[in-house]
């Protein structure tokens, strides 16, 4: 039997050791996921904690269909979205849009580390960040994003477009335009 199955069985029985083992296996990947959705490190820690508590409380709902990691990932994303929905939001007043000729070259992105890219994602306003993460990184379609966030498909597409523009602008500001590359 797959060792993970044994651990899951132990968790279903409420065995503390099995629960800790499960946490150790998935915590790094899930924390990486939480950092994408959170505003900062502390926020991500809270989302990770709340998410794993839900995983252990709802373990019997895992039907065995699909990967367990995918199921845990989905719970983490939902936890992050709940947190986002509960926040008081005041929307930014101005948003500058990049003109087409100012788009960042791919080589610029390649100079950035994963940690740098993570920090850029965290600078996005929450509603853009959610849509960008779910579409670009998780691969959710706009219809599902709209259902989960309670927005229209058009708003989801619009938010995605804005998120990309903001990320490109921030990369450009961070690494001084494509003139240094060419």
């Amino acid at each position, binding site marked *: 039997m797959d060792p993970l199955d044994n651990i899951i069985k132990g968790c279903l029985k*409420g065995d*503390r050791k099995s*629960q*800790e083992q499960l*946490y150790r296996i998935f*915590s*790094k*990947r899930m*924390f*990486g*996921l939480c*950092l*994408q959705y959170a*505003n*900062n490190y*502390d*926020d*991500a*820690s*809270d989302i*990770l*904690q*709340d998410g*794993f*508590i839900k995983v*252990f*409380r709802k373990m019997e709902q895992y039907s065995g269909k699909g990967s367990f990691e995918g199921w845990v990932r989905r719970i983490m994303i939902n936890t992050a979205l*709940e*947190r986002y*929905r*509960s*926040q*008081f*939001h*005041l*929307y*930014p*007043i101005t948003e500058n849009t990049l003109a*087409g000729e100012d*788009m*960042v070259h*791919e080589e610029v*992105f*390649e100079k*950035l*580390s*994963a940690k740098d*890219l*993570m920090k850029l*994602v*965290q*600078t996005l*306003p*929450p509603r853009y960040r959610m849509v960008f993460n779910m*579409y*670009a*990184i998780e691969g959710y379609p706009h219809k599902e994003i709209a259902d989960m966030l309670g927005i229209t498909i058009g708003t989801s597409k619009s938010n995605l477009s804005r998120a*990309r523009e903001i*990320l*490109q602008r921030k990369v450009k500001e961070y690494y001084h335009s494509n003139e240094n590359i060419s």
Partner: protein
Amino acid sequence: MGGKKNITDRVFRDSLGNYQESPPESVWAGIEGTLANDRRKSRMAWIGRIAAAAVILIAAGTIWILFQRTPETGVVSTGPLTEPAQQESAQQESAQPEPADEAANTESPAPSVPGPGDAASGDSPGVTDQEPGQIASQETDPSAGSGAQTLAMHTLEPAAEPGVLTPDAQPPGAEKPEGIIVTGQPGQDLQQIPGGLYTIPVSSPEPGLIIADRSAGEDPEATELTETGEGIDVFEEFGEGSEDYNRWAVGGQMAPLYSYRNISSSQGNALYTAQRQSSQSYNDIENGIVSYSGGVNLNYSPVKRLSLQSGLYYSRLGMTVQNTWIAASGGQYERVNFPSLEVAMSNSSGDIQAGGEKSNTVLANAWSTNEILSDASGAVAGDATTETKKGDLLQHFDYIEVPMILRYKVVDRRLGFNLLGGISTNFLVGSNVYFEENGDKELIGSTSDLKQVNYSSVLGMGLQYSISRRLNLMMEPVFRYYLNSINEGSIIDSHPYSLGFFTGISYSF
């Protein structure tokens, strides 16, 4: 453009799709603590369910036993009698009250009834001269031979007190009749007839006992006795002197109550709020609340005036904390830049912690409003996704209580007066905190560092009105004071108390 957009998605997906980072150890500690709490709550819930099931089973079982019991009836000790077939006349209904409870009566000419000695002779005129308001008693007639019995008629007078029969009005010199025979139809419910008499249910105490059907104008016939439903015994008493009473009772109560707390500390300055002006006491910013309590109880009376009560009650206690600011951290600001804003706020009862969906919410006490406004403005300027609000915090402490209360009937009448006192074990089942602003209430977290089990003293008094022999209404103001502090590890001792006006109903058996 589309290709360049896809480049953005692809770059971030490739870099962040499998991004991993070690979380802080405090995360697992928090998860472990919450799961341990879940296990504890689950155990407490099972204890509560088992206790409630036990109370319901005891009540149901007792009620079932009650309906299986035969009605109590008296037995007339009439001596040996002939079989019903041999007695063609003079048959009477009989019932036996306590000898001490006999009514006042006067002698009047008594027709004779055939006793065992007369049965064979056949000359049994029967009892035909009884009038309503009279009772007949079988008495030994020495002149009629050994074992012969005659029927003596007595006129009953209404008792001085309803339901109380005065034995004192017997004619001087008259011997107490050995039995009291009451006219009426067997099997009838309680009916009042002239003279203050009541018919009582009839049962056959002994084989061969002759029961007379005393319908007017009809010859009495022996009838099989049947058990009837219980009615109110003619010697029913609500007042003093009654030897009969119902030992068990089940009931329910509910009450609005006022709840607050008493605080003390060995360190006097601890009674003032932390971080702020030292002259500001917790008592200045905290207030009591009006909430509620209710539950079911089971009572047992080992003696008539004393009863022991237990049961299961739910009580909500709490208080408000005025002038509180909350701000949602939705942006990039570092909490260290806004020292007056805290994730957890201490008050006299414990740490109020924003949690769950509001775990990014920070709290502050804002009697130093200039400072808070400045920090809040800074938070807003730093990030467009932060908003602050001002209002009050509402703390709830929800308890499941298991009381052990002694109740003493100072006045034992239909309208009685009770004194009660005891102790209650209280299990904490909720500690939510709400933010109230302009009448709107929003859950923002809970109070931490509270003890799970507390003990409280219970004192009260009240009125009890008996609607019937078994059904009682109660109205009781009750004061509860928590004997131990509800918070853990704090230098402030906080003892909640409540004053509630309980109304309820109970059924005794």
